[in-house]
């Protein structure tokens, strides 16, 4: 399997002095489904956002698909970014537009100059967007305003927009943090299914330990900016969990063993 993403001794210190990442190193292979877990402020978001250069790192290097991330700018940065899909906790759709238009935003990065500015999507792209929506069970809503959807439906549009980019890597920043348990399950199932079928590597920031254990092929555990666990879910022992969160596993599971 080919490595498509590599963190080499990456550190990030914010201008206010907070050290968000300390010498983080790991690599991601094609088709992996990786969960990044850790308490708030442990650096999960910083990892995700440094991959597509929403955040500049302080030292070390990130390599994505053969490119050095930190030196990318302008057109090259845009070309790199379109190979990386991203979905967000708050969906971040354009709510005054239709579901279909929001999905089509995913291919704007591939359109040149004037047709991109005018939003002149090709019929092929439209067909692809519709079939993606169908795959996600959202086809009947394609002409609805994005603002009229429920949270789970909005996130499905978010997934469609990201997959529309034909990405090699999908970054998910707390994708289920704003959703009810049943929608959260649907979203995790869809994420896993869609990325697996297309051999897209997926990195998911999660607060829900049970979801991380259930869906991931690999888990990265962070604490105070340091990677303290990197391995398969089966290797995740109670001791490891305690060292990540600083509290016992029982205290993390609301209502005890409901997820077992």
């Amino acid at each position, binding site marked *: 399997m080919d490595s498509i993403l590599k963190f080499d001794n990456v550190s990030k210190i914010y201008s206010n002095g907070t050290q968000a990442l300390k010498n983080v190193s790991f690599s991601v292979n094609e088709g992996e489904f990786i969960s990044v877990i850790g308490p708030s402020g442990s650096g999960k978001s910083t990892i995700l956002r440094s991959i597509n250069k929403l955040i500049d790192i302080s030292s070390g290097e990130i390599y994505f698909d053969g490119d050095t991330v930190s030196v990318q700018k302008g057109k090259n940065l845009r070309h790199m970014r379109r190979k990386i899909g991203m979905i967000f906790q708050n969906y971040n759709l*354009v709510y*005054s537009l239709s579901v279909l238009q929001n999905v089509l*935003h995913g291919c*704007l*990065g591939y359109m040149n100059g004037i047709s991109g*500015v005018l939003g002149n999507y090709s019929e092929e792209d439209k067909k692809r967007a519709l079939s993606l929506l169908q795959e996600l069970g959202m086809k009947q809503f394609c002409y609805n305003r994005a603002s009229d959807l429920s949270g789970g439906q909005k996130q499905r549009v978010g997934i469609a927009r990201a997959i529309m*980019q034909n990405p090699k890597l999908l970054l998910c920043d707390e994708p289920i943090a704003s959703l009810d348990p049943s929608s959260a399950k649907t979203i995790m199932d869809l994420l896993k299914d869609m990325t697996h079928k297309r051999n897209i590597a997926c990195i998911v920031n999660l607060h829900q330990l049970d979801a991380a254990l259930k869906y991931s092929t690999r888990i990265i555990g962070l604490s105070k900016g340091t990677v303290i666990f990197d391995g398969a879910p089966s290797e995740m022992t109670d001791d490891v969990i305690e060292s990540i969160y600083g509290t016992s596993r029982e205290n993390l599971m609301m209502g005890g063993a409901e997820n077992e």
Partner: protein
Amino acid sequence: MENTLTNSDIYTDSGNLSPRKITVGCKDKNKFIPRFMIGVLLLAVVSLVYLNIDWLKIAGRIPQIGTVFFKLAHFDFGNIGLIGSAILETVSIAVLSLLYSLVLGIVFGMLAARNITKIKWFSVATQSFFTFLRAVPTPIWVLLMLVCLGMGPEAGVAGLCVHTTAFFTKSFAQSFESISDETLEALEVTGTGRLSVFTNAVIPAAFSQIIAWTGMRLETNFSECAILGMVGAGGVGFVISRNLQNYQYGTAGLAILFVFIIAYLIERLFVAIKKKIQ
């Protein structure tokens, strides 16, 4: 005993323990408000003294007002063709300046919106420049344009454009800035260029606000346009001022009536448009 009010419970004007009238306002009144009122009153007195206005003498001329309005109400339809074309010219100047400014306002609004340009000093510089343009009243811009471009509607359109563009730049930039950074970020990470993000996400999100600002501005532009004719920029204002100066009250009165009707229609139209959008 417990139900009886003692003197010490009650706050009075004099603050002592013998209540005559019970105070009902807040204990800590804003002391600035009475001072402000006294300041305004003093300024008014000073202005009156400076201008040396003799209100008694003016009061003696009040019947004149009745006479003038009486004469204005005797419409003279002899020059209806002239009035009609002047009104059309005024509406055209208002609409044209509105359309040009709409395009310019979107472009400059984009440059002035902090979340889109992302170069802070540039946005601040753009906004400051247009604030300066707005601080100078429209008739002065029109006079300047008259000097540059000569008499006629061109100067009217150009002069109105300056002010309207400045107005649109500020209001559109505000509308654009109200779009969440997260939404813009979501499109940026798809590798979409800055301009495409603007046209595909920001404009649709701000569209209804743009329409509302435009409708509001058409009203203002029309009424300003009616004034501008008086300084020589063409349109109905010129007809009104010339006829008043020549004591042609009937013609002037009819022109004023037209201005009123058109302004009212534009307002009704704007209300209808606003309802349709929401």
